[in-house]
């Protein structure tokens, strides 16, 4: 099994930390992982993206041009990465701020309104964990117990009091993700 994922959105949405938690979850179940961020000026408010690979085998290139799954959190990223999903692959997006919805018919498309859900839960910081929950519903490649362990490993200890909120957000994500277009 190899899963090649791009997570893309605005800086500050928790794109990089979501990728890190996913990668740590992979380590918890003995997988090979890589996490390759876009770095530089774009980290400070512009678009941010990270490529995460989970695999049972040694990982070759940590940088890719096509992906099994794209998790897209703003319009710029939709414009850039919709075409980069492999045929038969999966696109997950948050509808908030999206003016042009994905149109491809050869991939699975899911929508998760995580931004709206985070604000109605009164927990804007755990937006990315709602998205992660949605991803895990569609692609249950890492089990939830290992995600909890990965979360604990990647959050600094001073934030450990927020672990229950994060886990709650992941569970909420599992519930609210909706298929838009699926191949089967």
């Amino acid at each position, binding site marked *: 099994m190899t899963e090649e994922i791009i997570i893309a959105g605005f800086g500050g949405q928790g794109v990089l930390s979501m990728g*890190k938690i996913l990668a740590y979850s992979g380590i918890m179940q003995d997988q090979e*992982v890589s996490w390759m961020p876009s770095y530089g000026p774009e980290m400070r408010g512009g678009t941010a993206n990270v490529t995460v690979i989970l695999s049972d085998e040694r990982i*070759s290139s940590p940088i890719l041009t096509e992906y099994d799954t794209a998790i897209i959190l703003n319009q710029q990223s939709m414009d850039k990465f919709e075409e980069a999903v492999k045929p038969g692959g999966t696109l997950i997006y948050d509808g908030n701020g999206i003016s042009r919805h994905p149109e491809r018919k050869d991939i699975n498309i899911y929508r998760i309104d995580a931004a709206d859900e985070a604000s109605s839960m009164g927990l804007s910081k755990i937006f990315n964990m709602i998205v992660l929950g949605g991803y895990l519903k569609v692609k249950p490649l890492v089990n939830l117990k290992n995600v909890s362990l990965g979360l604990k490993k*990647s959050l600094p200890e001073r934030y450990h009091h927020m672990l229950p909120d994060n886990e709650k957000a992941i569970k909420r994500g599992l519930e609210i993700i909706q298929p838009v277009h699926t191949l089967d």
Partner: protein
Amino acid sequence: MGELKLMKGNEAIAEAAIRAGVDAYFGYPITPQSEVIEYLSSQKPEERTGMVLLQAESEVASINMVYGAAGSGKKVMTTSSSPGISLMQEGLSYIAGAELPCVVANVVRGGPGLGTIQPSQADYFQATKGGGHGDYKLIVLAPASVQEMADFIPLAFDLAFKYRNPALILSDGMIGQMMEKVELFDQVPRRTEEEIKKTCPWATTGKPKTRERNIITSLYLDPGTQEQHNYKLQKKYRKMEEDEIRYEKIECDDAEYLFVAYGSSARIAQKAIQLGRKKGMKIGLLRPITLYPFPVPQIREMIPRLKGILSVEMSAGQMIEDVRLAVGDKIPAEHFGRLGGIIHSPTEILEALEQKIIGG
């Protein structure tokens, strides 16, 4: 099994430095390697092992602090990225001339000049051909994973002390910034003063009555003496070329075409091999782990079975010169690489092989 962590390449360098029992780190921050000094300062190495951590006022100061401390037999290192490494070249030439061990890591970014902060491999010439003035070589190791960023720190120190020569770890912004699983080796204690005196009899550790003064210098004004000193250095480099070549071969057994690539390009080339083999192309990879000494005999040995070689490097074509020296005109050997901080994709590498070698 050691401790498993998810770390950036830069953080792995820093953690490995503490665990390898390094005595001092002198450095100055620059993107994309600033996490080295950031991580070190977060770890309070002065409390963990007694290691000295000092942010110098410049790269020139860093390398000269390394020079001074290395003279006393201590395990010392610095890290920087391309423009900062250029500033260190005078010091590196002095350290090589004075035959002192130290480790320097270059997390390469695009150039020339201040260039860009994105990954590049265009410092190959500087790294492998000396870099500063005079006839000297650095031992150059090219990690291709975060694991190797950690593992090459103790390896680089072993080689540096074995040959009394600076060792350079040549990575780039991709390996420095990416996170992977790392298995960390256990803490190695720092050497005691007595151990240093015993293992480094050349070091300036205080003159006992039993020996003459140890003098650390690269200045031999008499040309005859300087020539003899140069012959001694050259003999050392020949010995390195005999004994220290390191490389990895991937899918080479049935290969008709060969990629030669190091560091991040080797990782991307592996993906290109997967794509090519799906189309029935028999491609392999020779990954030089030491860039100096370069795996010349290993490439030569493969030539009779090969139809062509593509040297892949994020540069306008630097390592290709060493590949061609190994290959001569026996089979086609061409270069491919994106420039100035752009990372080539696996597809681009495969297309270059098809156009420049298979179709050419």
